[in-house]
């Protein structure tokens, strides 16, 4: 029979809130007081509420941010880390180096357009490239599950080697661990990479100004939708392949043509929307995106429409998002479009002063909506 209890967390939160409310000033209107309280909560450093890791912590949205800032940055605090960029940039002697690491756990391991091997090379090369560096050396760490076919591993290593050769980098050190059956999903790869900054570029959200242009180097969402379909859970087929590619050549072309590049990012986990939110929040400026200019393949649009997923949050593995001095937008676009990896480049939006910290979308329908940071994975809607 039904008994009744209350949710402990809700009761505690209410008690805390009442105590805060009492301290609040009586001069503001009730609505302003509420808004002020929210603003304070917003500014508070991210707190991890969960007692265990959930998949949301790995999805790149709010939960990932609170984990990184509330746990890892707390533990490892230093000025280089606190930049929280795709790679760390620091000086050794007279050289400026970029250093980055990334782990790859994609499932399935092989998918149209690539596999975990070239993904592991390209992803780390791209983190270096968007730091403005020329990628030089990579490490490769393999965590293998007992029973994993050697033939598959050989296939992965071969495609890593080919990707490294295309990117002009060498895998110079590595590590192998084997775990018991059931303790891993076949094969995980970690790569770290070192590159050198040869141009006098200074990239970062601090350089972004109102009037800057936001450009994406090609159609978005290819990788994420390809992986979703390759998992075979959906019984949808589409002529679509991952966009995995090394982007440092494209970055070079761009920086040659438009020295006024303020920021480079590769739109991986969390998609273009997550990057734009990071930009808006770090720069305390607004990003205004025009939905009808965002390049997207019909197969991606269709799959996302069916699944109830917003393509702006879907991962890419070979797409550059860049913020460029507005006066150089045309030059930047022309340069990107002249490169085989950027022929679908498009200007998708502008930076403005107001409202600070927000990403707004002018919808193709002619309306306005806020593009917020995701809490966790983009989950399909039932209605």
């Amino acid at each position: 029979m039904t008994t009744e209890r209350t949710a402990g967390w809700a009761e505690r939160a209410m008690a805390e809130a009442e105590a805060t409310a009492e301290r609040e000033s009586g001069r503001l209107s009730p609505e302003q007081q509420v808004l002020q309280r929210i603003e304070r909560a917003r500014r508070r450093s991210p707190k991890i509420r969960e007692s265990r890791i959930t998949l949301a912590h790995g999805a790149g949205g709010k939960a990932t941010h609170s984990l990184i800032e509330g746990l890892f940055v707390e533990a490892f605090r230093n000025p280089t880390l606190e930049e929280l960029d795709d790679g760390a940039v620091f000086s050794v002697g007279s050289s400026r180096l970029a250093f980055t690491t990334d782990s790859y756990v994609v499932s399935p391991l092989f998918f149209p357009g690539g596999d975990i091997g070239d993904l592991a090379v390209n992803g780390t090369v791209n983190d270096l490239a968007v730091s403005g560096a020329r990628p030089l050396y990579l490490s490769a760490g393999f965590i293998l599950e007992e029973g994993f076919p050697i033939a598959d591993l050989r296939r992965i290593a071969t495609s890593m080697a080919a990707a490294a050769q295309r990117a002009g980098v060498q895998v110079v050190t590595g590590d192998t661990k084997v775990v018991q059956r059931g303790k891993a999903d076949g094969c995980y790869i970690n790569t770290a990479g070192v590159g050198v900054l040869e141009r006098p570029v200074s990239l970062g959200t601090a350089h972004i100004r109102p009037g800057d242009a936001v450009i994406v180097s090609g159609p978005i969402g290819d990788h994420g939708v390809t992986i979703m379909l390759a998992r075979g859970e959906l019984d949808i087929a589409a002529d679509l392949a991952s966009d995995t590619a090394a982007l440092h050549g494209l970055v070079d072309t761009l920086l040659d043509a438009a020295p006024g590049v303020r920021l480079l990012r590769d739109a991986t986990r969390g998609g273009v929307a997550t990057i734009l939110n990071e930009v808006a929040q770090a720069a305390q400026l607004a990003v205004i995106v025009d939905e009808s200019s965002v390049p997207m393949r019909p197969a991606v649009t269709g799959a996302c429409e069916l699944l109830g997923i917003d393509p702006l949050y879907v991962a890419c593995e070979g797409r550059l998002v860049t913020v460029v001095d507005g006066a150089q937008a045309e030059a930047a676009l022309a340069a990107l479009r002249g490169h085989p990896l950027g022929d679908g480049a498009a200007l998708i939006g502008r930076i403005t002063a107001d409202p600070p910290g927000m990403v707004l979308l002018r919808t193709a329908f002619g309306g306005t909506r806020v593009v917020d940071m995701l809490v966790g994975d983009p989950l399909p809607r039932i209605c």
Partner: protein
Amino acid sequence: MRFVDEYRDADKAQALATQIAALCEPGRQYKFMEVCGGHTHTIYKHGIEDYLPESVSLVHGPGCPVCVIPMGRVDDAIAIANEPGVIMTAFGDMMRVPGGNGSFLDAKAAGADIRMVYSPLDALKIARTNPDRRVVFMAIGFETTSPSTAMTVLRAAAEGIDNFSVFCNHVTILPAIKAILDSPDLRLDGFLGPGHVSTVIGCRPYEFIARDYGKPLVCAGFEPLDLLQSVYLLLQQLAEGRCEVENQYTRVVPWDGNLRALEAIGQVMELRPYFEWRGLGFISHSALRMREEYAAYDAERLFDVPGVRVADPKACQCGEVLKGVLKPWECKVFGTACTPETPIGTCMVSSEGACAAYYNFGRFTRQRLVEATRV
């Protein structure tokens, strides 16, 4: 995309917006409730409110099926998922809905085998391929999803699959609308009827709303032009002094509904005497349970469900917010105990709920946002 782009044409929207503005009586305020969560999503996704005059506002109704699941039912489902040998299956948007003690995502992290499916048939497939496990489908939703649950149970019975069951949380839309209509301080001028639900139940069941409560209802489709046209039809009724049930979504909704789907529901499920709705409390005859004949597929009978009721904190005023009586910020727990990270009521659970939207963006007026995108 064909059959989609036609309903998202900005020029047609502009033309409709002009007609809508012309129908509004100067000085009069109009409040229409869209009952269905899918409509709320469309309104938000396409920015439809930009096309409406200041005097027309849309009130987001209780029709988000995951948001109305009370905390106790989530806890019950997690208790089932924690039973040995159980695979719990659920729709994606159910995964994050918090119970009294965490969500499905949290339970999964703590070791329960909880899998996301796109259809109850996928859950049945899991049961077929895992004969040594007990597969439970967390059934949620209005009449839109209950037929597919019923059909799945019928198929399981026909195939003799005995390791599949349903934890039935299906709700019905009419009692919820009625609960809102019965409120003495209701301030609504009409309803945008739930198009998907209506593909099953048809338009006829809404007739009491116009007849007994004097509120017009237009059964609306899910593309942005559908919604604008439906608002136009509501305003036209008011302007002409009519009060009727109209069907804007004729390309999908038959007036009498889908009889085969209704039969399937009736065969497998029956009305519960009462069911709790998050934020709205208990509403009689507002939900479905499995019939005795299908007890073998009823997780509530097969498992020892704790049935603990987790009380919504007393101060939660979702009901008032839903009825348009209170603004989100006027609710006693808004922004304090109830936040998007720790939502208490249905209006905060969904990111498109009135409270979640106000929490995230309330500091910016709509006008400020619209102007920002016009530079």
